[in-house]
């Protein structure tokens, strides 16, 4: 088919976002370096950055971080320990968990064609926590906990995801059904969780951790698992962007264009459950990150899922990192559950989306 006319072809999508993505990466990198300054022990900001640069560059950029600071060698070693073994892993966990929740939320919104889908609201996070809580009840050897936790969480998330998928596929699969199913599942699962935690041998201290979300457990090995899984699942989910775009036109149209809608739904849900589970296994339930992040991306870069999914990961990571910084800045002496902060920001936003959706044409491009 020869082109009838050759009007100027607009530039492809990737060029349109390239510059913005570069800027975002720069900001994120800077935040990553500066976040460890905040903490319950006051360490000179310059020293924190120097310690990080020393470790990150392998001594190439900065060789003796404490040079020029009035600190004893013993204190210098302790500071180094705090920054590199505690704060930075914590910051990385916030980033990783936020990114995992962000791209999970975007993918769920894609497969359910529903701008209000989110791993927390749909109960998938609760499912993952219940799965993870079983680890404690089965008294699994804690030396393997880093592997057992995400694995059990994945099973719990998957079971919940299956129920949601069934609800969405039924004749009554409207937005309301989906959300109400999520609400019902969530409350069922959190009672189950409370029960499991009450009978668990390690005591009720864990309850706060699971129900409110916490990144205090960040260690290098945890970060390795979270970021490693995220790298794989996040990449795969981003590669489904084109299919998710087509799914937005409805099942039939997507099929007629060549998308195997059912297969895509199941695969994406599987990957989403895995991604969410890994985050939840180490941080507990952190709500609304998966809901808010895709909306911010859509507002800025449009509705193309090839951008929305990876973009939501970046925004989700930044969001949770910001929440961590805020929580440490406000109350440096205590370990405040980070989920409280995301809920403070996310819940009003959720309400806003609900009302806006009602006041506009059905399913407007929220």
């Amino acid at each position, binding site marked *: *088919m*020869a*082109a*009838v*006319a*050759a*009007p100027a*072809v*607009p530039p*492809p*999508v990737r060029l349109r976002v390239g510059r913005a993505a570069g800027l975002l990466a720069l900001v994120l990198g800077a935040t990553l370096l500066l976040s460890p300054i905040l903490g319950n022990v006051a360490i000179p900001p310059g020293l924190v950055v120097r310690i990080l640069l020393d470790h990150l560059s392998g001594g190439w950029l900065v060789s003796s971080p404490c040079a020029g600071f009035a600190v004893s060698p013993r204190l210098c070693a302790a500071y180094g320990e705090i920054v590199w073994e505690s704060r930075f892993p914590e910051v990385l966990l916030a980033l990783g968990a936020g990114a995992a929740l962000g791209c999970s939320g975007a993918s769920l919104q894609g497969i359910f*064609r529903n701008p209000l889908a989110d791993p927390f609201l749909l109960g998938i996070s609760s499912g993952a926590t219940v799965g993870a809580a079983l680890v404690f009840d089965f008294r699994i050897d804690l030396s393997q906990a880093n592997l057992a936790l995400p694995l059990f969480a994945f099973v719990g998330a998957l079971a919940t995801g299956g129920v949601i998928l069934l609800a969405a596929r039924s004749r009554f699969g409207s937005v309301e059904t989906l959300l109400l199913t999520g609400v019902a599942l969530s409350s069922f699962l959190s009672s189950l969780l409370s029960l499991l935690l009450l009978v668990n041998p390690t005591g009720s201290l864990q309850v706060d951790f699971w129900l409110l979300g916490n990144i205090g457990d960040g260690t290098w090995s945890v970060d390795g698992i979270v970021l490693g899984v995220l790298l794989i699942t996040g990449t795969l989910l981003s*590669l489904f962007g*084109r299919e998710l*775009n*087509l799914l*937005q*036109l*409805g099942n*039939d*149209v997507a*099929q*007629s*264009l*060549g*998308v*195997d*809608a059912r297969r895509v739904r199941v695969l994406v849900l599987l990957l989403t459950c895995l991604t969410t589970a890994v985050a939840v296994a180490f941080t507990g339930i952190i709500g609304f990150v998966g809901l808010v992040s895709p909306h911010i991306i859509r507002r800025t870069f*449009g*509705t*193309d899922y090839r951008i929305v999914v990876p973009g939501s990961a970046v925004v989700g990571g930044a969001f949770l990192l910001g929440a961590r910084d805020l929580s440490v800045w406000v109350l440096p002496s205590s370990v405040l559950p980070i989920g409280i902060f995301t809920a403070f920001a996310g819940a009003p936003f959720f309400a806003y989306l609900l009302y806006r959706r009602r006041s506009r044409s059905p*399913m*407007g*491009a929220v």
Partner: protein
Amino acid sequence: MTDPPSPAVRLSGVTIRYGERVALAGVDLEVRPGEFVALAGPNGSGKTTLLRALLGFLSPDAGVVEVLGGEPRSVSVRERARRVAWVPQEEGARDDVPLLDYLLYGRYAQLRPLEGETDEDRSRAMGVLAEVGLADRAEDGILSLSGGERQRAILGRALVQASPVLLLDEPTAHLDIGHQLDLLGRVRSLAAVGRVTVIAALHDLNLAARFADRIVVLSRGRKVADGPPASVLSEELLERVWGVVAELRRDRRTGASYLLPYRPATPAPQGPTSLGPGPVHVVGGGGTASPLLRALAEQGYRLTAGVLNLLDSDHETAQELGVPCTVEVPFAPIGPEARARLRGMLEAARAIVVAPFPVGPSNLSNLEDLQPFASRVLLLPRTKNDAWDFADGAATRALAALRSAGAVEAAGPDGWRTALNDRLDLAPKPA
């Protein structure tokens, strides 16, 4: 498609059921490559079901569906899309995707997994945009398009898909006449150069006759006619399949035949058997008679109405329908002049239908004045718990008197049609 005689699409003995309902019953159909076939038939005749079977959305309960020599359900979804493109009747777009990106969705089946659209794909999409007359809207979001533009965008996406078989489901439903001709003309010319085989469900028989090589008529899931437009279109077919009285005419310039529909054919079993002289009188108020007036007017009854208040919505409806009406000024009891006029109307009426209107002291006479004509009165049922008698029981007594004098009550909300026919036959003809 190497062998010319092999059909692009073949159905043999295809039966498809939705539960108990038979949507297609033993349909045979062959469509040659490059042919433009129009599917015609009333709503629910099986047109869309046939298209959905070709798309592989439904598998036949009996018989064989073949597209380009293979059953749609036996190949992958992607391969199906390479064979068949679809223009749905409507599509619930919710994201404001730029139009060019939207057209590029059509390339999905042609791309390997992970492969991005090439510059060639993009210029092909731009070419199609120009073809459907939307080249200047390439960067606009699809939600900003008008209904007609949206329809052309969907056609564009199907053309970008470049599949040899193109299915259209009422593609002109949202288009004005200019764009209908335009869109079908484009599809026609594509078929003419052999680029696509077209099967289009079309409501409008005249459009079908003008653009299609062949018209296939479905009625209740069966194929009842199949052939070139000139041999298929007939007054008899229209009355038999659609229940419409029409006249077949010939265009003086083109020689093409077209149908001029007049009215629904009347001898439906529950319709009025004879529309003799003397109107049907409707008594109502407070908006209760409006649906009744409309339904009766639609059925072809001559009507009168009253007594109604000037500001009543029933009065507005009567005026709108051109129904002669006795009126009274609002908020006042019905006066002697109005009652006299009503009496005249009642005497002339072949039947009197009473809507379930609220009765108070001011309009109580509307019930009482019916008493002498009780044998012609048909009462529409009232909802049990609705308060309607605001005249301290006088209205209830008047109604009881009417009943005992021979007024009948329609059974159920739709029973009035049958009851009215009985009444018309029973009612004494006006002198």
